[in-house]
């Protein structure tokens, strides 16, 4: 049985005005376990707290009930008070007799009666309280960033800046991501490479950062502060530490017919290649699918020309195991496939391209060395039609595209249109749109310049059909404002394809037990208040893996994620909230219901051997909760049919005791 002290606060007249506090203190005196009951003007004042501390010591109290304002106001205060007097802070319960009583009830009699009942409920609960101690777990002071695009790069740099080691895992041979493929960036039109490549160099030169390029995460175990990650380094057949990146091999390689993915297949590269000049790491990679040597054993040209002797045809995939305290997901996006959009003749005509392909066509390092030429015949296009929202905002065509807005297309299309008119004033540029969305700093001004200064024809309406005829593309479209059908003979059609999360995200989410939405974007812990954290503790989100974003947004989110990571890695130990779920292994059935409802992946199962009362042993599958990961929502406690799962601080018997006390009238 507990020794409980009850402390009724007047809160000046806030409570005492409509609740007879003396009567409350008196009425609660005889409740089970209560050995002391007092009232005071302001319990939260220093004097009030001293009074509580003195009573705890004098009466050797094992628990206290403070009848005062909302626990959301002063629960923390009174817990500290209790702790100062040597009482476990979780032996404190608050009866909210201000917000839920004195402030809303005008009648003294009913207010007092209710206050007494609320006090009794708190007493009933504290009678069943047990001292709780927050669990502690150490923190591995290293972060993992999955994805080496601008989001990953920025996060890694920021974390490294704070002094923590960071590893970047990138599936491509180089970091840089999508931004490396872009030409200019809106709305300032600075060249993407000019602002990105210095950052890439920073990464390469930063002692705190390791880059695992051409690599992927294949296994994640553990929890916040203590992730054990396995990284697969795919064999690139070139020794990274020896290759100087001179590029001689990439010139001599006889296998010339490999579609160059960096240029989206619009030109070819060799079987041994460096994706682009500023690649980081600047190391060649042999494409095993095309290398004659690896396929037939006959060639070896690259090995012959490599003066450094970096070529290694015998290389194997390597698996690296590393511990991390935090994981940042920055897996980015891809444009969706245009295969299902037959109406735009993407697969029928080379001159129907996506916006990202257009970026490469206008990029000085691209297949046309920056000259805007038609992919089919290398001629200058004179009429270009841009189609917006291809696969975005596609409510009716969810099986083809996406229901959401891809957010970046309006701006980059304006950029493309403007740049085209700037360089090639003789070109007619049409943009078909549903809406033009420009909610960003200097965005709308940018768009208006395209229309007003550069004379881009913006037409509200959808393109119905693109049909290749001779060397022209017949574009059928509607002009919703003019209310008429348009027929345009275009030379080039550019599709603003919707973007979607990278395909690797789904598997990664499963490994991390991080939740995703139906579009495979990672879910944030709270859409407003915790936008860069996954609900799974220790997993953070950076960039478009969480939702469509432009570069400025991505970089700011990347920084925000980094600051969260730094906040975590700064700690030597993680102190948990002790009000977490706990599984009684003797009663657990191992049915997995709790695991399935846990939003944090805090529950794991293992086979354990139990000694039965009849002295036999039995192996059973039982759940255990990782207190460092559990956030204490209690979803598992109701999913559990046997009641093996209970929630500290809000145990079944505590809540039922409160129910009983309230209903006992």
């Amino acid at each position, binding site marked *: 049985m507990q020794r409980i002290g009850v402390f009724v606060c007047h809160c000046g007249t806030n409570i005492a005005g409509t609740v007879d506090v003396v009567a409350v203190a008196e009425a609660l005196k005889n409740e089970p376990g209560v050995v002391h009951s007092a009232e005071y003007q302001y319990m939260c004042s220093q004097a009030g707290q001293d009074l509580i501390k003195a009573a705890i010591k004098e009466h050797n109290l094992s628990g206290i009930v403070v009848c005062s304002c909302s626990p959301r106001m002063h629960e923390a205060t009174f817990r500290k008070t209790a702790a100062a007097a040597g009482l476990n802070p979780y032996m404190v319960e608050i009866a909210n007799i201000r917000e839920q009583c004195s402030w809303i009830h005008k009648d003294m009699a009913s207010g007092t009666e209710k206050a007494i009942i609320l006090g009794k409920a708190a007493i009933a609960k504290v009678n069943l309280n047990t001292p709780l101690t927050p669990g502690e777990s150490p923190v591995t002071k290293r972060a993992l960033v999955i994805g080496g695009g601008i989001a990953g790069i920025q996060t890694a740099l920021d974390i490294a800046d704070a002094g923590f080691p960071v590893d970047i895992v990138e599936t491509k041979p180089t970091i840089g991501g999508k931004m490396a493929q872009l030409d200019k960036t809106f709305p300032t039109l600075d060249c993407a490479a000019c602002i990105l490549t210095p950052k890439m160099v920073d990464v390469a030169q930063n002692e705190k950062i390791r880059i695992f390029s051409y690599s992927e995460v294949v296994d994640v175990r553990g929890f916040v502060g203590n992730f054990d990650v396995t990284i697969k380094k795919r064999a690139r057949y070139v020794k990274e530490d020896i290759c100087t990146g001179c590029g001689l091999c990439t010139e001599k390689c006889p296998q010339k017919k490999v579609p160059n993915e960096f240029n989206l297949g619009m030109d070819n590269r060799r079987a041994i290649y460096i994706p682009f000049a500023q690649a980081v790491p600047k190391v060649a990679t042999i494409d095993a699918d095309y290398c004659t040597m690896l396929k037939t054993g006959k060639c070896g040209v690259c090995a012959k020309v490599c003066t450094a002797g970096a070529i290694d045809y015998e290389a194997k995939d390597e698996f690296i195991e590393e511990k991390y305290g935090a994981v940042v997901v920055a897996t980015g996006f891809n444009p969706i496939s245009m295969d299902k959009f037959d109406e735009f003749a993407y697969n029928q005509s080379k001159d129907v391209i996506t916006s990202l392909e257009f970026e490469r066509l206008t990029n000085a390092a691209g297949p046309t060395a920056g000259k805007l030429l038609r992919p089919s015949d290398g001629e200058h296009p004179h009429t270009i039609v841009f189609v917006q929202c291809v696969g975005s905002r596609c409510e009716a065509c969810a099986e083809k595209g996406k229901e959401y807005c891809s957010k970046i297309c309006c701006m980059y299309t304006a950029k493309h249109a403007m740049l085209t008119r700037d360089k090639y004033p003789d070109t007619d540029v049409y943009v078909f749109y549903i809406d033009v969305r420009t909610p960003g700093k200097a965005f709308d001004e940018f768009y208006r310049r395209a229309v007003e200064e550069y004379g881009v024809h913006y037409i509200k309406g959808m393109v119905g059909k693109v049909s290749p005829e001779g060397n022209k593309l017949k574009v059928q479209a509607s002009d919703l404002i003019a209310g008429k059908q348009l027929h345009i003979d275009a030379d080039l059609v550019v599709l603003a394809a919707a973007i979607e999360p990278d395909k690797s995200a789904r598997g990664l989410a499963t490994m991390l037990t991080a939740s995703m939405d139906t579009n495979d974007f990672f879910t944030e812990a709270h859409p407003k208040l915790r936008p860069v954290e996954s609900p799974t503790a220790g997993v953070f989100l950076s960039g478009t893996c969480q939702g469509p974003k432009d570069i400025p947004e991505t970089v700011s989110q990347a920084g925000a994620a980094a600051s969260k990571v730094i906040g975590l890695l700064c700690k030597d130990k993680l102190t948990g909230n002790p009000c977490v779920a706990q599984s009684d292994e003797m009663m657990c059935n191992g049915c997995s219901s709790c695991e399935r409802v846990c939003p944090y992946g805090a529950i794991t199962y293992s086979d354990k051997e139990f000694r*039965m*009362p009849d002295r036999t042993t039995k192996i059973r599958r039982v759940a255990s909760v990782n207190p460092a990961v559990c956030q204490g929502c209690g979803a598992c406690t109701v999913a559990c049919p046997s009641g093996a799962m209970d929630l500290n601080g809000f145990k079944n018997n505590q809540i039922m005791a409160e129910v009983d006390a309230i209903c006992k*009238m």
Partner: protein
Amino acid sequence: MRKISLDKLDLLFAKIAENQSLYIPSDSVEGAKFTKWTNGTALTNELNTVRGIKDFFFPQSEDLMKFKMQGKNIEVIDIRDEHEDFVIFGARACDVRAMTVLDNVFLHAEPVDTYYKNRREHGIIMSLACTRPVETCFCGTFGIDAANPEGDIVCHKTDDALYMNAVSEKGTALLDSLSDITEDADTKAVDEQKALIKERMTKLPLAELTTDAFGGGKTEKFFDSPEWAKLSESCLGCGTCTFVCPTCQCYDIRDFKTNDGVVRYRCWDSCMYSQFTRMAHGNNRNSQKERFRQRFMHKLVYYPENNNGMFSCVGCGRCLAKCPIRMNIVKVMKALEGTDNGSN
């Protein structure tokens, strides 16, 4: 012996119900059930009720006492009250014998259970001979005469009349009070019926079952029999057999917190339940095999040992009909009997 013609049965019931509650077996959704007689309550055609008459004397749940608590103080409140008089009509021979089995525990073994005694003193049993026993009946195994049941008033129902014979003081008084609507009768019709019943009893499929192998002092013989493991292997550990059994009397005493104090009540418990013997420092019957063995050893060995050879099974057949997995005392007896013959 008195008789009343069957068409006046309602008159008889009405007359009895004038001065006390009368319960007769009547049809209901669950099967036949002792129902408080009111005008129109009809006697069932079923052989027997789903549950015996035990419930009237030892109800599934009954309040024993109350406690009021204030601070450190406790007040014990005795809530026992004189029970109302009641009559049970139509109890079968097996169920009436079951009351003797219970009496041995609650009345004849010190200390007397006053709750049971109170009900027993106020209840009158009018038993009814069975003319149509069914295949699960084996009361004869335990020396019970279905043709001539025990009780306060023994009744025989023929095609046209109900014959009543008072065999106890209470029964005589009740039957006397009915004298104006009943008439004297000779024993001819009853004797004929008894002969018919006796003949029928021999034709029952379980007529050959005997208790010869069992009884007090046989603990050692059966306790470690390998049959227990096999017999109990599919036992679910539910309490169906116990709760439909007219002689099972295990109970639990529990406290219920009311809004005003604590009510201590007693309720049926089952030795088949895994929690039955579980206490703070362990459980001495941990496996279902041990619990299963306890139930049948009690009926066939322990009880007879403590009660002059009387078995605590009356062959009513309820467990045969109700066990979810169809394990029952007959199967147990036959299996153990076999080992007895084989090993000894």
